């Protein structure tokens, strides 16, 4: 009797061990790091718009949440390691530590110079998801291996605006550029698009931030904007230091487009179509604010990883990268078209939204802008134009 009981006990124990092992061997763990650095609060035109400190992070968290909802059915568990380096901290050091821990999928929310440094340090070990830069050089002649870019480049944004301007026949542009390096890059992209779509830049002026007490927005803008006749004023002011002053104050009554007025963006709070309402609601419930571009980019980065892992069951950087750059990868991004990565520069193919502050005007590429393989490639540097491989 006792032996039978003992036997039963052993059998029970054995079955427990077996079933545990079964679960353990099936459950997959996917570690993703999110790396960013605290930022100095930049100067702003208005205190109405609060400075958001967690732009990007909340998007990554939502992406992780969605991945884990799926993961409960596929026995996959996603973990996000948040690395937020203080203002005076060492980003390179933090990155090295992430690599040391063996994490090979890293969402990077850092400016272009820092991304470049991390890329060198990375030496193709990890797959980096850039959710911050719009640098054309990274998509054109200074491509970074093992880096995928989630946000539209400046060239993509400028092309989106130019397509719409062409449709409206607003062909004569007056370009106003701020004095930061980023503004110059934006203006460069605008000029490229103008040439590409046959627009004419009739005048170009630089906005100088002088601190002359006699200069006010009301008196200065009308004088500043007296040039030959034009259809639209294109403003290049990425930080938003003066661009908002131009609308309603210019000498001629003309619309403003560019970094203010009608803007080209990856995401906008007025976007509702193609199921966008659902993600806007989910995001607001999580973060208590509207989703910003960097959040959208980080969300897509996490979701892209999720798609690759779900479909291939592989979690290493090489396999994930191979899947993401293959024809099989099609990501739902709430913009009506499947998103994918351009194999030549790692740029995420995506529609670009053209939005006014409280209304979505249109999504580019516009109807009628054709392309032999994918209409999304009418935006930004196409394969034949790029020097990247």
């Amino acid at each position, binding site marked *: 009797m006792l032996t039978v009981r003992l036997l039963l006990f052993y059998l029970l124990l054995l079955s427990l061990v077996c079933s545990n092992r079964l679960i353990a061997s099936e459950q997959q763990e996917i570690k993703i790091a999110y790396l960013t650095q605290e930022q100095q609060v930049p100067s702003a035109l208005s205190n109405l718009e609060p400075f958001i400190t967690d732009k990007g992070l909340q998007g990554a968290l939502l992406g992780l949440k969605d991945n884990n*909802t*799926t993961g409960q059915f596929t026995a996959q568990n996603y973990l996000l390691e948040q690395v937020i380096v203080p203002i005076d901290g060492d980003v390179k050091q933090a990155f090295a530590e992430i690599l040391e821990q063996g994490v090979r999928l890293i969402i990077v929310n850092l400016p272009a110079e820092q991304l470049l440094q991390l890329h060198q340090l990375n030496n193709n070990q990890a797959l980096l998801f850039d959710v911050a830069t719009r640098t054309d050089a990274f998509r054109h002649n200074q491509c970074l291996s093992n880096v995928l870019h989630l946000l539209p480049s400046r060239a993509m944004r400028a092309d989106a605006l130019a397509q719409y301007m062409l449709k409206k026949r607003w062909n004569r542009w007056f370009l106003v550029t701020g004095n930061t390096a980023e503004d110059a890059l934006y203006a460069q992209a605008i000029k490229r698009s103008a040439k590409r779509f046959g627009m004419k830049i009739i005048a170009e002026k630089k906005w100088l931030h002088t601190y002359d007490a006699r200069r006010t927005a009301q008196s200065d803008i009308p004088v500043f904007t007296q040039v030959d006749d034009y259809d639209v004023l294109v403003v290049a002011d990425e930080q938003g230091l003066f661009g908002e002053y131009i609308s309603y104050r210019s000498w001629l009554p003309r619309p403003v487009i560019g970094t203010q007025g009608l803007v080209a963006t990856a995401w906008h709070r007025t976007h509702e179509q193609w199921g966008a309402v659902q993600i806007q609601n989910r995001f607001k419930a999580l973060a208590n604010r509207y989703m910003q571009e960097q959040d959208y980019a980080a969300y897509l980065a996490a979701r892209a990883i999720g798609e690759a892992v779900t479909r291939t069951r592989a979690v290493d950087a090489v396999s994930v990268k191979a899947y993401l750059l293959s024809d099989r990868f*099609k990501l739902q991004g709430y913009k*009506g078209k*499947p998103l994918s990565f351009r194999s030549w520069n790692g740029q995420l193919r995506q529609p670009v939204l053209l939005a006014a502050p409280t209304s979505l005007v249109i999504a580019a590429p516009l109807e009628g802008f054709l392309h032999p393989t994918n209409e999304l490639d009418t935006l930004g540097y196409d394969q034949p134009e790029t020097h990247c491989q």
Partner: protein
Amino acid sequence: MHTKVLISAGLLLFSIVSSAETVFVSLEKDNAIAVVDPIAGKLIKTVNIGQRPRGIQLSPDAQTLYIATSDDDTVLEVDANTLAVKSKLPSGEDPETFAINSAGTHMYVSNEDDNQVTVIDLLTRQAIHTISVGVEPEGIAVSPDNLWIVSASETTNMVHWIDAKTYEIKANTLVDPRPRALSFTADGQQLWVTSEIDGTLMIIDVATKEISQRIHFAVPGLGKEKIQPVGVVVDKKRQWAYVALGPANRVAVVNAQTYEVEKYLLVGARVWNLAFSPEQKRLYTTNGVSHDISIIDLDDHKVTKSIAVGRYPWGLAVKP
């Protein structure tokens, strides 16, 4: 004299036939349903119903019309003859689509924002269960034998197989991105599923729960990204299937035996959902952006008529 009688008798007969079938269309932006006489080709009336009506379906006995009014967070139970609201069912938040079992006793509702399916007992009008599913559940269907509830999650990209007795998920089928609509064949052997983002139609074998066929669409002169399949229906004999291709503005006619796409029928803009006439002689389509419905004659696969109904027609139900 005799001819007059004959003519009037004929007219009488015609009017009886024409009033025999009514199409109800949910109008997402008008907060109303349109009541259409499809034989006469006329919009009879528009009835205000509630905020953002989307999913719409008749009870098996065709006496009750159920309408999901998404922004009111309820599914309305409406008398199909008088259109009087009888009750508001506890559907959970943001109900979009739902399915009803063949006995008409249970309703299964997709709650898109909450990642769950709510089960409603239609006799007691109580929510009796919620089932956690993937992100953004949308398409939902019950197998003809009432054994399975299938739910498609748009962002998780999965079809969940829910046991209709225990409400446990027994299997998951990974499908192409952004699955939208699901439709069982009448014999219960196949489940047809559309993928909006990949532009594909998948046929899942119910026994193995694996994809057995994948159908691609190509409309000459139309970009691939315009093809975004949404609604799908298969006829009772499993001879033909019809797929609404969204912004391609066409309904694809698929041979359900050979899986060949035989025809593309031009309908209205952004064709969304589909419904058969009671004898499966006609197919009705909602065209979201052109604000009308199209009528397709199924004997010769021709679009015979389109009827303007109101803003953003979403779904339709056909009362014999």
